[in-house]
Each structure stands twice: as structure tokens, then as C-alpha cells.
């Protein structure tokens, strides 16, 4: 009954096991497809940021580096807001 009330009120229900399966698969396949373990990916990101920081200023806490899947291709996407030179 509580469930019905939740549904009618439009409250969020916890993710289903199918949703969890889908999310877990999408994550693991990123690394399978690249043949790169999560810690190696992290290491690469740090190295990339080290190189960039030699040339321009940016806030490391504001950086987003992700691997996106477009069809069956993987894209390394870096979003790095730069700071004006002080």
C-alpha cells in the first residue's frame, strides 16, 4: 500500500536491479573496451593535467575528465576551465 501511495505521489523509488545492472555494465565496459584499469586511467589523467599545468592556470578541483561512449567508440572528454593569468 505504501508503494501505491509513493507511486501516486510520484516519489522516487530506489533503482531497480535492472537499472543497477545496466549502470554497472556501462562502467565496466568503459575499462574493458580501453583495456585500461581504473587506476591507470586515473594515472593518465593526472599526467595530462600535469602537462597542461605547465602552460596554463586552472583549478584542479574544477576539472572533469570522462570516457564517453558514442556508439561503439570511446571518447576521452576533458572539461578544464582555465583561469585568467594573474
Amino acid at each position: 500500500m505504501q508503494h501505491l501511495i509513493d507511486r501516486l505521489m510520484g516519489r522516487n523509488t530506489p533503482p531497480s536491479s535492472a537499472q543497477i545492472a545496466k549502470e554497472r555494465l556501462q562502467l565496466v565496459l568503459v575499462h574493458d573496451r580501453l583495456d585500461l584499469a581504473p587506476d591507470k586511467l586515473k594515472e593518465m589523467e593526472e599526467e595530462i593535467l600535469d602537462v597542461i599545468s605547465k602552460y596554463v592556470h586552472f583549478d584542479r578541483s574544477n576539472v572533469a575528465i570522462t570516457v564517453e561512449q558514442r556508439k561503439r567508440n570511446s571518447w576521452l572528454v576533458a572539461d578544464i576551465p582555465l583561469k585568467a593569468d594573474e
Partner: protein
Amino acid sequence: MGARVITVTSGKGGVGKTTVTANICVALAAMGKKVVAIDADIGLRNLDVILGLENRIVYDIVDVVEGRCKLRQAMIKHKAYSELYLIPAAQTRDKTAVSPSDMLDITAKLREEYDFILIDSPAGIERGFRNAVAPSDEVLIVANPEVSSVRDADRIIGLLEAEEKGPGKLIVNRVKMDMIRRGEMLSMDDVVDILAISLIGVVPEDDEVLTSSNRGEPAAGNSNSKAGQAFRNIARRLNGEEVPFMSLDQSEGFVQRLVRLLFGTTNSAS
């Protein structure tokens, strides 16, 4: 040109490759196509028993490769479908008894005379898989809506792309519509999203598949079987027909639907 060579593979074992191969062969033969089924799972022969031909084997594919018989002598004619033949795997040898170029030679000799050559691949990504894929024009990847099977299917698709045989087309096998409705099983849309390849078949879980395998008469020949219908639909799609996919709402009655709409998933995580 002639026949299209279609390899059925999956990576993971136990997802229904052999059953799918047997059923598509039967469905194509029932449409009047000339079909050869090749069991490439050397050492673990099974396509013969699913097709009900296990008592007729005299020669196998390794006998052909090693010159102990002519190709025609190893081709077993099906009892019920006069234009369906099986080339059985050897039972007492291993995958190295056949090479990818042997598979190319065998299929080359059959292409002119037949419409479809289906190859049942062994599980795994080693020699047996490479043998099965070497002569293929198209690859069908069988996956169950389950995490380990989908992950292995992704690996297989990657290997196929690397060999320029990919990406292949997807068959989601052993789908349980009621579990999908309750959010307890990946849907075919989920699997297609994750693997990013096109779908050619959705086969529901169906007890008839087991009982028909018991008898050696694939479910595709049974007009009352839901899975049989799904296999016949795959055969028609392979033949170039547009056949709509089974929807989630099929097989759900009015009362069931009402209950689902009112109560949502019946078994939420708590």
C-alpha cells in the same frame, strides 16, 4: 556468390548458441531455403543432438579436413527437412584439428549450391572461435539479458571489429518479459543500448525449447511455441523481410497490466 555464411557466437557458454543455430536452420529450411549447418565446436559436439541427427553420423568435419571422406559424405540430411544438412563436429579431437583456412575451403565448396551456411561457434575467444568466424559473411551474437553474458558479448564484438567481421547483429535469448516489467531483468533495449549494435532477434524464455531439444525437434518447427515464433522471425529477417519485434506488452493480460500500472514494480528493493 551463392550462400551467405552466418556464424553464431557469444563468447560466454551456455547462452543458447547451439539451440539458436539449430532453430534458425530449421526455420530457414521450412521457408524452402537450402541450408547447411556446421558444428565448429570440435570436442564438444552438440548440434547433432539438438537437431535429432546424432544416430546418423558416420563422418565428421575432421574426417573431411584430414581426407578420410569426401565433403558430401560428412553431410547428414535432416529427417524432416530435405534441404537441411549437418556437418557434425568431431567428438574425440580438439579445436586444433581444424584451421581457419580449412573452414574457408569447406564453405567455398558449399557456397554455390546452398542459400545459407550456418556455423555454430564454440564458447570462448580462442582457436575454435577463430575457425568459426573465418569464413563468415555475417555474425550473429547471442546474449542473455544478464551481466556476464552481456560483458562477454561486448568482448566478442570488439574482436569481430578488430578482424573486420563486425559489429554483427544481436540476438537476445531467454528473455523473461514479466521480470523485465518488474525491473528485475535487463530489457532488450537496455542490452542494445549497452552493446550499441543492431538487434535481429528477441527470444522469450520458453519451456518448449527444452522439451523440443529433448525430442531432437527444434521449437522453430512447433507453431505453438513462442520461442519457435521468435526463431522463425529471425529467419525471416535474415531473408530480408521486415518483421516487427515482440513488445513488452504482448503476453500481458488486461488484469496483469492494470495491477502493474496501479502498483508498479511488485518487488522493489527495500
